[in-house]
């Protein structure tokens, strides 16, 4: 038996395989398929300060080996989360992490503070890809200043493991990563979706109600891998790799590039068993390469 355990700041994960926010619901959607005992953790869908209806339909467009989504953070708000959802997910036999979103620093703070009180949520993932309404809609995660301001504010009141999830739609991801780390983030996760667009040529209309949306899936994997590598080189805190992962080889690539753990998103839609297959595949890789612990592979890329 190889050692698949991973230490992610204060979190002890059974293995490095987690599910990405917004792609695994609250976990129960996959109850017929996935044995939570076999996952490193799950990141549940985004929670905001109050109820959000999200964007109008259509919210989805398929692209070459990827998809665009324009869900727009549909959720029932933090109070509903605390009262109705938390009780149902708090005893999952895996690490349950909440994804925290907002349009103002105050909203992030409000959600994070309430999350801090939930015993069985040992960590939050701060989704700073949301549009910063006060600064005209550019996402929080696209400038160092706004990424720092939200991280700083939440860090002050959130006492447990704080993961900040970076937006890839930036010129210099390493710079943003460093500035977020400087504000006391315990861990970084990347990448969120890339901003993209789809058009229906026959109708001469955008496919999505919001015109642009977030690109995910294997198409973005090379970009995600590059960003994880760039960030791992400059920050000292652990990095969680996300973007187009659909098999154990992909997962190993992210780990070699510097990820301490990985999240699987869109691939769940195609194969509900994919996370468990990735766990098996990582173990098989360790066997084949005679590596005792997956932790040895973190950042172990051989670059001449």
């Amino acid at each position, binding site marked *: 038996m190889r050692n698949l355990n991973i230490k992610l700041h204060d979190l002890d994960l059974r293995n490095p395989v987690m599910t990405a926010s917004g792609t695994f619901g609250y976990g129960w959607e*996959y109850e*017929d*398929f996935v044995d939570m005992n076999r996952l490193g953790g799950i990141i549940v869908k985004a929670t905001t300060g109050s109820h959000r209806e999200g964007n109008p339909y259509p919210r*989805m467009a398929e692209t*070459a080996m990827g*998809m665009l989504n324009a869900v727009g953070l*549909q959720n029932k708000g933090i109070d509903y989360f605390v009262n109705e959802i938390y009780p149902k997910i708090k005893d999952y036999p895996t690490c349950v992490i909440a994804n925290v979103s907002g349009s103002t620093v105050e909203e992030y703070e409000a959600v994070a503070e309430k999350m801090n009180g939930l015993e069985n949520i040992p960590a939050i993932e701060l989704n700073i890809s949301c549009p910063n309404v006060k600064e005209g809609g550019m996402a929080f995660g696209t400038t160092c200043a706004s990424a720092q301001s939200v991280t700083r504010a939440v860090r002050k009141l959130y006492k447990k493991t704080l993961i900040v999830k970076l937006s890839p739609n930036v010129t210099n991801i390493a710079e943003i990563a460093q500035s977020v780390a400087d504000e006391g983030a315990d861990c970084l996760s990347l990448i969120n979706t890339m901003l993209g667009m789809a058009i229906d040529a026959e109708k001469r209309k955008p496919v999505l109600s919001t015109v642009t949306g977030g690109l995910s899936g294997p198409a973005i994997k090379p970009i995600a891998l590059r960003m994880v590598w760039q960030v791992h080189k400059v920050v000292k805190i652990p990095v969680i790799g996300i973007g187009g992962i659909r098999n154990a080889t992909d997962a190993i690539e992210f780990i070699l590039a510097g990820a301490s753990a990985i999240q699987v998103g869109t691939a769940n*839609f195609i194969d509900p068993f994919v996370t468990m297959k990735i766990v098996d595949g990582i173990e098989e890789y360790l066997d084949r390469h005679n590596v005792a612990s997956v932790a040895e592979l973190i950042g172990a890329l051989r670059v001449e």
Partner: protein
Amino acid sequence: MKKFVHDFIVISNKRLNSNHFVLELLSPEPLSTMEPGQFAEVLINGSQDVFLRRPFSIHNADRQKNTISLFIKIVGKGTHALSIVQKGEKLNLIYPLGKGFRLPAHEKILVVGGGCGIAPLLFLVHTLHDRGVKSDIILGARSAGDLLITQQFSRYGNMFLMTEDGSAGEKGLVTQHSMFSKGSFAYQTIFGCGPTPMLKALDKIATAFGIECQVSLENTMACGIGACLCCVVKTTTGNRCVCTEGPVFDTRELDGWYQPIAKCYR
């Protein structure tokens, strides 16, 4: 209802006309219980351009043979790839998904299908028939040649045909059938599936007669199991997932549908 992921075996792939075909699929395990109106998410291999699964209604089920069938219209890359699968190949399905038609206790049922919308209705009338209910069925199409598999339907109910060019049955759209313009209307529930304009017209009729109308929607989906929130429809209580709370909805739940005439005129 428990969902399964199974490799079904293609028993037959029958082409009905230039752009419709029926797949008959053998389940490797005893068929799950299923409601008419539920669907399956089908994994499509062999096409570089198909990334996500594709949703298709369960067209019919045969518990003796342990098979289900899918009635599919070729509209793009995925349906094209499916149209050429061969007998003996495997197709991976997640099923049964969503909520199907709520079957009423009464017997005064009208089932209306337009174009490819007939897909989930065969299983519906089949199930009703098994419960001793013989429904009335209106099927519509452009012309006689496009009226497919009416014969299968006629086993389970009384058929009324409509064609746009009048080459079979009455002439016009399904929603223009003469029964709707008679003073009296015998039905307590309408079940519909087809293009949205047709469903909206059906809903108007139901509204006018003050009866229930259940329609099956075909919103684009990514996951099919309630995880992604991509497939929502606006209901009177906010956005709800078509894949888990539908695809069949009572039109009274749908925002902007079923507007009682009274309300409009007040």
